[in-house]
């Protein structure tokens, strides 16, 4: 995250943390020491039973460590009132885990309520957060969880975790329960949100691709929460520390490097845009003037909501309305991996790219991606050749 804004997150320090369950010979977490810098996303990955979730839950004391120290922003978590500590650490778990008897607004407003915020401050905050996670407040505020799709529930779950603006957010397999396309969108949105907020996010996952995509750093754990490698995604993919990491990262790590490049690194194409309600002949003229065969329809909040071939528009007087939430787009933070995936399933052989708060940015197509890959490969080859030349001369 190469932005200049100061992080609103706090750093976390684990020192010699041990968790031993009674009746078990080996500790679940054996002397884990770790520094998590403020404002970064750190992904905990590892095989099941490696102690990653235990390690995460010790940070907000859902599990009490047997020994060792955990500090948030320099303060020992054991020195604080446990409920107060948890109110100031966001907690997001799989599926959102929303309370089914409370409306969306009540779910999000829970922690602010516990912190005794006033009514109007809480309700302003709820609306702000719903906007942030891409749900229209007027439409969703008073709904109940069962009236939402899995992806929407997970979004509300993220909003709930962010509600009291905590410096640290803990996530436990946050996107494990949704379908791949929704998961990809949610991941992109999380990155967009992080671009705005700069929290310290600790996230547990078993999916190395998710870790590579989301993490500023990845912590790979072996059994007993032994650190196998703690490094940037690039370093984990390119120079795995040991055979365990190599195995875990798995085959196709060259292909995985597609996950290291973002759509925003690629040159985006422009295309004709139109708004719902606009007169069709005008739009057609505009498109033909640019030699475009299709137009992207935007809604009132500048979100793309449909991508139409010109022939689909003919016969309409004005551009019809569409629902932006049902249209598959690509966040500019999405990886090239996701981009190729989305393009393959689109009839246009390309994908619409969105930026902050799902606003339209441009279009990405196969050519742009292959050009980019070629350019990086040439660059890699050049560096390799230069290295080789240096080696010979040395």
């Amino acid at each position, binding site marked *: 995250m190469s932005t200049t804004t100061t992080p609103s997150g706090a750093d976390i320090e684990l020192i010699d943390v041990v968790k031993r369950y009674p009746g078990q010979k080996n500790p679940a977490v054996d002397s884990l020491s770790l520094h998590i810098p403020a404002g970064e996303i750190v992904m905990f990955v590892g095989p099941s039973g490696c102690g990653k979730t235990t390690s995460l839950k010790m940070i*907000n004391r*859902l599990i009490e460590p047997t020994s060792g120290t955990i500090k948030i922003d320099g303060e020992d978590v054991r020195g604080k009132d446990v*409920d*107060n*500590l*948890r*109110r*100031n650490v966001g*907690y997001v*778990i*799989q599926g959102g*885990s929303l*309370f*089914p*008897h*409370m*409306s969306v607004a009540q779910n999000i407003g*829970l*922690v602010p309520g*516990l912190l005794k915020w006033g009514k109007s401050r809480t309700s302003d905050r709820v609306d702000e957060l719903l906007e942030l996670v891409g749900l229209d407040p007027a439409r969703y505020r008073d709904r*109940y*969880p*069962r009236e939402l799709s899995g992806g929407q529930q997970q979004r509300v779950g993220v909003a*709930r975790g962010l509600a009291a603006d905590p410096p640290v957010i*803990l996530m436990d397999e946050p996107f494990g329960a949704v379908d791949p396309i929704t998961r990809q969108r949610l991941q992109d949105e999380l990155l967009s949100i992080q671009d705005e907020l700069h929290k310290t996010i600790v996230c547990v996952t078993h999916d190395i691709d998710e870790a590579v995509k989301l993490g500023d750093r990845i912590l790979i754990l072996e059994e007993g929460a032994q650190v196998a490698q703690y490094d940037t995604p690039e370093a984990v993919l390119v120079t795995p520390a040991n055979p365990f990491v190599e195995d875990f990262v798995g085959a196709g790590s060259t292909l995985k490097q597609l996950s290291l490049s973002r759509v925003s690194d690629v040159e985006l194409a422009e295309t004709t845009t139109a708004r719902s309600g606009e007169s069709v002949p005008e739009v057609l003229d505009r498109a033909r003037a640019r030699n475009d065969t299709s137009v992207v329809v935007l809604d009132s909040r500048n979100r793309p909501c449909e991508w139409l071939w010109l022939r689909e528009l003919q016969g309409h007087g004005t551009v019809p309305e569409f629902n932006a939430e049902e249209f598959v787009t690509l966040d500019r933070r999405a990886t090239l991996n996701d981009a190729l995936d989305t393009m393959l399933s689109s009839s246009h052989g390309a994908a619409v790219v969105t930026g902050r708060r799902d606003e339209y940015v441009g279009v990405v197509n196969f050519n742009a991606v292959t050009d980019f890959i070629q350019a990086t490969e040439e660059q890699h080859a050049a560096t390799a050749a230069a290295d080789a030349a240096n080696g010979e001369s040395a």
Partner: protein
Amino acid sequence: MWDFIVERREDIAYNAFQHVNLVVQAVLLAFVVAVLLAILVTRVPALQSLANSVSAMGLTIPSLALLGLLLPLFGIGPSTAFPAVAFYATLPILRNAVVGLQGVDATLLESARGMGMSPVRSMMRVQLPLAWPVILAGVRVSTQMSMGIAAIAAIVLGPGLGGYIYTGLSQIGGANALNQALLGTIGVVILALALDALLLLLGRLTTSKGIRV
């Protein structure tokens, strides 16, 4: 039959009120006791099997026998009828409350804890509201049952419509015997249905829209 009712309307109205009054008070007490016990049971898992067997076995005690056992302790009249009805009323509510509270998804409770809710707050704001429809179903069963038991409690001169039934049965062959017995029985059924309708309405009003079936 009609004349029989009209002649006694004030008496009937009074007894009907007494009957409902006894049941409502007994169920209220039973509700408080049962929910408190259920909360205790969910906190102390060792008590769970005990609670289940008590609530199952309690219902097998014949009400007549229990009334007989309580009689020497509390004497003739409502002072015996009330504890007997309250005892039976507790059992279905206890059973449903234990099932309801334990049926709440453990991840939701961990989520509540992770958000900084104290155990008491988590119970009041998450666990009880989610268990509420199940608990209320127990209250309905309990109320229906108590209407019948309150009628039997008339044998110890408890208040209510049961008196008509006993009078009718003891005068079999007499002029108004059948009318007496029918009046008591049908009266209890009508009141039970009315109370059940009220509870149903209460359920609609107090159950969150998010979990209503």
